[in-house]
């Protein structure tokens, strides 16, 4: 099967009222396709972490989810400001989240770790003052 887009959605900076909508719609789509619930769990958690990171830490961006016969690919791109030190950002507990978002339970500094843990493959393109692009692959 050729790669097909399952879902594509713009995500606005600071849009907490719609936070989680991409992952929620994705869960429905995956269920209708008959994807195993454990796989769906991994894909939707990865998508939610990427979605919330765009809302919380970036100037806005978009998420596209693609499927082929072998894998599901989640691509999150944003318009910056980029991550100056990726290694540091992946350290458990590292977070630049402010008090407002911490009050909602974000800012544990665990999101990137979760994305890595639940993905079979993860690539990150970013840098200070750059756009960020995360590509996460989960095998079917």
């Amino acid at each position: 099967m050729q790669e097909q887009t399952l879902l594509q959605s713009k995500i606005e900076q600071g849009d907490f009222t719609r936070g989680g909508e991409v992952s929620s719609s994705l869960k429905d789509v995956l269920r209708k396709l008959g994807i195993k619930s454990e796989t769906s769990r991994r894909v939707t958690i990865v998508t939610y972490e990427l979605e919330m990171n765009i809302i919380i830490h970036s100037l806005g961006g978009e998420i596209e989810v693609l499927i082929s016969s072998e894998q599901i690919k989640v691509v999150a791109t944003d318009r910056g400001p980029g991550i100056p030190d990726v290694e540091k950002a992946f350290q458990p507990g590292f977070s630049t989240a402010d008090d407002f978002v911490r009050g909602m339970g974000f800012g544990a500094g665990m999101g990137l770790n979760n994305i890595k843990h639940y993905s079979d493959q993860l690539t990150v393109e970013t840098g200070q003052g750059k756009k960020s692009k995360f590509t996460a692959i989960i095998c079917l």
Partner: protein
Amino acid sequence: MTRLGESSMKVRELADKLELEVISGPFEKEINGVYIGDLLSNVMAKAAAGNLWITVHGHVNVVAVASLTQVAAVIVVEDFPIESAAVQKAQTNQVTILRTPLTAVDLLRKLIELGV
């Protein structure tokens, strides 16, 4: 962050036994272990499908996290407020939310007594 042993109790039975306030259904899911925590990414890292998730948060992000992690139910402790948007979203997404005036620790004691 705590995880307890196996159990085959359903959400409805638990809600009845502990007189939990019902915010949203369904109630037929089997409970399998407990996770306590308020940091959403930690919940996504540690809570397993079928767990009871005990938290103080009552906002929409909780509904999203509960739905994705596939927990059996969320129990909001200490009667913390639950946003009406969260209740609506829980109903649409079939996420079970219950509430209790108990603290997390007192609730946990009762869960242990019940063998959950």
